[in-house]
């Protein structure tokens, strides 16, 4: 298992009268090279949950395993450097954390900080720039004269330069235009498929969940209320409504047709799945369609 949570709880300001529980008794497991989406309302505990994956927050109770690393309430800060290299964290609006004079310096900052020679770090920075879809002409530019979408790519290149095996993404497409969103999600999909990175994606975009995720965790009031494949999680309209979650749009159309009497093999979750099932039962007029 790449990632596992065993009875993990997190309480802010634990042991004080201000103590607030943010995550209670969460257990789940993600296989090697998995792609997990975490969904749930603002304030449901999603961000608290993922910040424990590289021990920015240490669990108040329970145990987290990430590949060969174990994080418990007793984990000390001295042990964390290799873990933080292993687990890359892309926060919301990561472009706010850019600070160097040039794009190359910004991307090379992390590796240099971890002891890499400057020349090697710069070479790595140029390679990462290419990975995120920006050509080498950007290397010498100031990150602050780039567009919002480009700045975000640079910030992500900086995380990738640490060569993480697990990538945590907290609403990575928020505030981007549709094309920028699409390009960003395709980039993560490629890293997942080609380099085997395990991905943990926190998102409100149900369309992205059904398109990319292999497993889905649903958080509510600090608890894990559902865990399974997208098909399992989106199977009940009633349950989703009770939990104030949106159904993917394909599933909404399919559900309305089901309400009129159409029986689906399995509820379609994407436009392609819906079109496949529609095509299979489409009335044939002299075999004009495949």
């Amino acid at each position: 298992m790449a990632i596992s949570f065993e009875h993990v709880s997190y309480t802010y300001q634990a042991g004080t009268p201000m103590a607030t529980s943010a995550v209670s008794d969460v257990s789940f497991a993600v296989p090697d090279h998995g792609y997990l989406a975490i969904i749930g309302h603002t304030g449901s505990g999603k961000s608290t949950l993922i910040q424990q994956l590289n021990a920015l927050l240490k669990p108040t109770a329970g145990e987290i395993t990430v590949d060969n690393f174990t994080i418990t309430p007793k984990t000390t800060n001295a042990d964390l450097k290799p873990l933080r290299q292993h687990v890359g964290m892309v926060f919301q609006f990561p472009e706010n954390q850019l600070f160097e004079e040039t794009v190359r310096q910004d991307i090379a900052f992390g590796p240099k900080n971890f002891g890499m020679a400057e020349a090697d770090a710069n070479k790595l920075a140029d390679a990462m720039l290419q990975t995120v879809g920006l050509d080498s002409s950007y290397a010498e530019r100031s990150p602050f004269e780039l567009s919002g979408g480009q700045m975000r790519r640079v910030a992500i290149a900086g995380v990738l330069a640490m060569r993480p095996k697990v990538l945590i993404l907290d609403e990575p497409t928020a505030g981007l235009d549709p094309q920028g969103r699409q390009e960003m999600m395709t980039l993560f999909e490629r890293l997942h498929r080609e380099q085997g990175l395990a991905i943990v994606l926190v998102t409100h975009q149900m369309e992205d969940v059904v398109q990319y995720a292999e497993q889905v965790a649903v958080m509510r009031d600090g608890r894990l209320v559902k865990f399974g494949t997208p098909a399992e999680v989106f199977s009940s309209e009633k349950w989703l409504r009770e939990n104030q979650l949106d159904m993917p749009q394909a599933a909404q159309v399919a559900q309305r047709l089901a309400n009129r009497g159409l029986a689906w093999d399995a509820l379609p979750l994407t436009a392609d799945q819906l079109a496949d099932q529609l095509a299979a039962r489409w009335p044939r007029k002299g075999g004009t369609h495949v």
Partner: protein
Amino acid sequence: MENIIEVKHLTYRYQADDPRPALNDVSFTVHAGEWLAIVGHNGSGKSTLAKSLDGLLPFTTGEITVGGIQLTPETVWQVREKIGMIFQNPDNQFVGATVEDDVAFGLENRQMPRTEMLPRVKAAIARVGMSEFAQREPSSLSGGQKQRVALAGIVAIAPDVLILDEATSMLDPQGRREMLALVRELRQTQHLTVISITHDIDEATIADRVLVIDDGQLVDEAAPATIFAQGERLVELGLDLPFTEKLKAALRQRGIEPPADYQGAAEMEEWLWQSLSNT
């Protein structure tokens, strides 16, 4: 219909020697009471346009008239009285230490007497459903609540025109829906003209009319249904495809020819149902 805004041959360059103007000979009108959406991809010039309307960018070529007043350096404050703006990132627009102070700020700026101001601020905050948060620090609120406070500021000032500059793009889906519902409601009760600059297909759908900006130029102007029927071109213009258009493309790939007109979800469902029952 009366025009609340008229824009004629507006050209704007960020640098005087810029070979590609950010806005290039843009002309259009906004009718009083209308909801106009302005769409375009990042960098197309749509935010530059919004800022020009409010006199935030000093344009050199062209003419802007708001509520019958021609925008000049002399009239810019008169014009701003007529326009309220809400930006993408609510954190960049708060000045007050509490929600109440923040909503009062715009009125203080207009030198309204305190006795008149206080009830007006309270009423505006109540109008957007934020009364229980009146004494809270704006920074402690969620994104959706912050934009509500920004809307309360608009209600207090009661401008003729509300410009939303990607004001819902940082909100979660529920926050976005709630904010749009509130703007719709305010538009009715406060007789607002709404200009929304957006990538969000649902937000564009609410509009009476959509303007498409590309590379600083106005390239299209039509009702939402006409714009949305353009399929893949929408992506180039910086909009997402409506789901019904995505489904139509997927059906075409499978040899099924759907109607060419734009269809909302209900029409699409009806067409699918009819086609499938037609065996």
